[in-house]
């Protein structure tokens, strides 16, 4: 049971934090149409986190609102990639691409998960995620193949985000058990599949694969060690809830 909860917390927390981060673009997007699209996807991610929290609730954990709004940073299991500030739009787009491609590959396997409630949910989520992938890929291709300025901004963002995005696949002590029980492949296997896919796509966008030979890992998030960016995000996200935690909505 612990291994299943470990996985669900990782999935849910990644979604909640990336959703909250991306929602920071609301009203600030580069153009109205994209502002709406990006905000809508951010809302999807928060919705997905709630769905995962409900699976945790079925396993005896607290209700989604309590899990989302009352835990301290060290109880979160999100990876470092989702915690970083939105920075400029190039960074937010590249992170959105890297994260959602990882999500797509994971969901593809979760649809076949031996844990049926998770398999059923994965099928539902992958429908919405299809658009996220199309959106991310279109922007990557358009901007990578656009003007020199656009290409340089995307390359700069990729150089920053790519090594950090490996944190999505940080193994935990439950990784092997999850694979043995057929709940999902190991994080290593998922990462290999993801790297093959994103690296060939990145090249098609006229962008270079960042050098990760001297790669410093950004691990720790899966065991509660986070960047300094997470606590302020949580403080902001839980601000309204904290005014009256017992209020009914």
């Amino acid at each position: 049971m612990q291994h299943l909860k470990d996985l669900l917390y990782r999935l849910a927390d990644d979604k909640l934090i990336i959703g909250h981060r991306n929602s920071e673009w609301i009203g600030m997007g580069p153009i109205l149409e994209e502002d709406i699209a990006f905000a809508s996807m951010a809302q999807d991610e928060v919705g997905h986190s709630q769905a995962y929290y409900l699976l945790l609730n079925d396993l005896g954990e607290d209700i989604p609102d309590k899990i989302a709004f009352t835990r301290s940073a060290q109880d979160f299991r999100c990876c470092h990639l989702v915690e970083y500030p939105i920075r400029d739009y190039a960074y937010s787009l590249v992170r959105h691409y890297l994260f959602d491609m990882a999500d797509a590959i994971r969901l593809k396997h979760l649809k076949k998960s031996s844990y049926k409630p998770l398999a059923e949910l994965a099928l539902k989520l992958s429908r919405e995620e299809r658009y996220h992938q199309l959106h991310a890929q279109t922007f990557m291709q358009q901007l990578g193949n656009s003007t020199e300025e656009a290409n340089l901004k995307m390359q700069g963002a990729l150089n920053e985000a790519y090594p950090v995005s490996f944190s999505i696949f940080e193994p935990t002590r439950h990784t092997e058990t999850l694979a043995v029980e057929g709940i999902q492949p190991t994080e290593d296997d998922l990462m290999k599949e993801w790297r093959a896919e994103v690296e060939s796509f990145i090249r098609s966008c006229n962008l270079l694969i960042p050098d990760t030979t001297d790669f410093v890992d950004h691990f720790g998030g899966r065991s509660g060690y986070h960047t300094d960016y997470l606590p302020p995000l949580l403080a902001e996200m839980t601000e309204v809830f904290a005014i009256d935690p017992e209020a009914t909505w």
Partner: protein
Amino acid sequence: MSNPYQSHDPRMNRVSLQVGSEAKHQEGSLMQWQTYEVFQQQKRGDQHVHVGSLHAPNPDMALILAKEQFGRREQCANLWVVKSQDVHATSYDDADMFQHAFDKSYREGDGYKVKDTIETFKRQLDDLLGSRDKAPGEVAVAVPVTSQGGWKVYELPATDKGERKILVKK
């Protein structure tokens, strides 16, 4: 006169745009995207219906952006985008040409006599089926009994899908 490149948006004002040939180039090709008209199809086989327009630099981007602007609030099976400039329209100055000088309602789609037959058919069905209590999932078949000028209703067991369906057989 104020700088024509000055935006009222405080966030845009942080960017000090050059007024000159380069700035003009940007203004033309990148700063202002063209508009696309969006057509939405609710179900396969339905007509695509115009639902609005949006800004995009090319058709790929227009489709990606159209999905969230127009495909998210209601059922959608397919989207079309067409450059606004590719739409050719009549002039409102010529709107008079659509007016008939004399009554030509016989030309209008709803002017046909069959309309009365359809209305009668609907009313009779309502009389037969509408007022009765029906369990969800009940299926009824109404068959016209022309010699008596009425309808005979046959009830069938509920479908396993729990749908409420009325089949009309001629």
